[in-house]
């Protein structure tokens, strides 16, 4: 390394005024050289870091690349023992073949309906409850909040059996009598898919957090101006937490689109199957035809990936904000 200039070696003409100026100049060049070498070092380490990150990103993304490459392979290629890394020919028709074998369009539509309904209901009921708990004093609010906090702790898997039984034994539904006997209740109906997930305690909690940070003065001003509580909420307070709304919307949509166990339990007919469930069933039907399975997987995964690209920042904020607070 040529970068270290020792100050002592330049001290020859010390004492004179000219010497002082020279010394200053020398010191300046030395400093600059130091800076330059430091930035050079930094550049090298940053380049190394970038390369490392590219490698890591590639490894993380590789399964998706592999999924896509497989989705366009021919069947003989899949079964050949010396399958090339890169598909020899691109068989886009795998997607249409997969669509013929399983109605992924219907599955996707069903998932979309569930995701949208749950997004809207979580936004409406969650924001209302969150607003009430954050900004309105009322008797019982602390009890309700405690209850919401406690239910956040309840894992879905611990209550899935009673939830299923409730769906099955809903009175007067699906041929059931008053005591839920005799029929199938809401089993294999839209009600079963939609009703239990209308609002999650976690989203109420998130909304409460968002509303706590909004200015109470605005709310009071609106009240003084004679706005009703409902109007204050809809026109003044709710718009203040728009970023929070988007976060909850994304979380709710993702949960709806990616849900698996609940649709698996409460549906049996094809036209109520969701995309994840359809994919799982398709795997058993398609057997080892991985090119078709990967075409189906691509169709199930791409909507969320596209959405993530569009709303990356909100997604990240949502996840981070939801976990950290």
């Amino acid at each position, binding site marked *: 390394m040529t970068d270290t200039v020792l100050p002592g070696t330049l001290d020859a003409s010390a004492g004179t005024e000219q010497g002082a100026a020279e010394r200053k100049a020398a010191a300046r060049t030395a400093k600059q050289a130091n800076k330059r070498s430091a930035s050079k070092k930094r550049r090298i380490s940053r380049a190394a870091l970038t390369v490392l990150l590219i490698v890591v990103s590639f490894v993380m993304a590789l399964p998706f690349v592999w999924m896509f490459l497989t989705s366009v392979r021919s069947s003989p290629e899949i079964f*050949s023992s010396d399958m090339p890394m890169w598909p020899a020919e691109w068989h886009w028709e795998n997607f249409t073949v997969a669509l013929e074998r399983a109605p992924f369009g219907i599955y996707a539509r069903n998932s979309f309906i569930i995701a949208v309904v749950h997004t809207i209901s979580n936004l409406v009921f969650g924001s209302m409850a969150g607003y009430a708990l954050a900004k309105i004093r009322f008797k019982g609010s602390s009890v309700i909040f405690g209850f919401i906090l406690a239910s956040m*702790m309840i894992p879905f898997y611990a209550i899935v059996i009673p939830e299923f039984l409730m769906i099955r034994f809903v009175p007067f539904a699906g041929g059931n009598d008053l005591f839920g006997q005799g029929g199938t209740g809401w089993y294999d109906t839209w009600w079963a898919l939609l009703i239990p997930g209308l609002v999650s305690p976690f989203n109420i909690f998130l909304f409460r957090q968002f509303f706590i940070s909004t200015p109470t003065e605005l709310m009071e001003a609106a009240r003084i101006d004679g706005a009703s509580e*409902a109007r204050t909420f809809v026109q003044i307070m709710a718009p203040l937490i728009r970023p929070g709304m988007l976060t909850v919307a994304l979380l709710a949509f993702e949960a709806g689109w990616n849900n698996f166990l609940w649709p698996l339990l409460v549906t049996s007919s094809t036209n109520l199957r969701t995309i994840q469930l359809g994919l799982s069933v398709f795997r058993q039907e398609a057997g080892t035809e991985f090119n078709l399975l990967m075409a189906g997987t691509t169709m199930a995964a791409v909507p969320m990936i596209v959405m993530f690209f569009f709303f990356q920042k909100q997604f990240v904020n949502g996840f981070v904000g939801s976990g950290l607070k």
Partner: protein
Amino acid sequence: MSTNTVDRQTLSTTRRRRVPTLTQRQGRWGLLFAAPATVQIALWTGLPVLVSIILSFTNYDMLNPPEFLGFDNYVTLANDPVFWKALGNNFIMAIVGIPISILISLALAVMLNQGLRGNSIFRTAVFLPHVTATVAIAMIWLWIYSPGGNGLFNIVLGFFGVPNQAFLASPSQALPSVILVTIWQGIGLKMMIYLASLQGIDQQLYEAADIDGASAVQKFFRITIPMLKPVTFFILVTSIVGNFQTFDLIYNLTNGGPANSTTVITYQIYQTAFQQFRMGLATAQSVVLLIVLVVLTIFSRRITGGKDD
């Protein structure tokens, strides 16, 4: 609703028509706003918890009325080696997988915190597995682990002269293979949380350390690591809780096999309830899961200093 404040009101309004006070009016609106969500959660979370606990003391097959058994179901579980195996697998997945993914995600977060160009691309790549549904992820890895020699892993191993491996079909390799997927899938979220808290660290700490002539390594171990301690605990406990709820991956990747080598507690609940229709026993398993998770959650609240209030 109004009965809460009615006492004070009746004293002063014996004759006049009662006009609700501002607080009263607000109180009504508050309850009205909170009611739909509260009723919904009481019905679909509160009630099921009670039903779960009650059913766990019964023998119930959905066709005949439940029959009270006392603690028999819990005794059965205590003597069931497969249930213990499932619990054990959950613990192994947690103990092996979580520390590895925490270390990787911390390293990635530190690297991504350097403000390099292309940051958002790297972030996206690492976070993508978290956004994708676990079912889709299971399908992809099923293919990567394909034992026939055309699975990606066997192709790569083939380059190094390693013979074809069974991976998910081998009782000894299946669980490690599953753990690898959980690590890959879990890095993204942890990395994001670390990244957020790294950006929250006061830069003055580093500047002060610079003046004292601290090296990058010293700064990392003396400042960064201690400052990240609370969030690390948080990630640790939430990851353990999340790990005990693994289901989609197991269902679609291995069905708990081979020879129960990858079965987990949620898969046991599913099988007992919806394949054997032993609802009483399955709810007892649910209650065990509930207790484990409530303990872990309370533990996490303590450590992170209480989530709220």
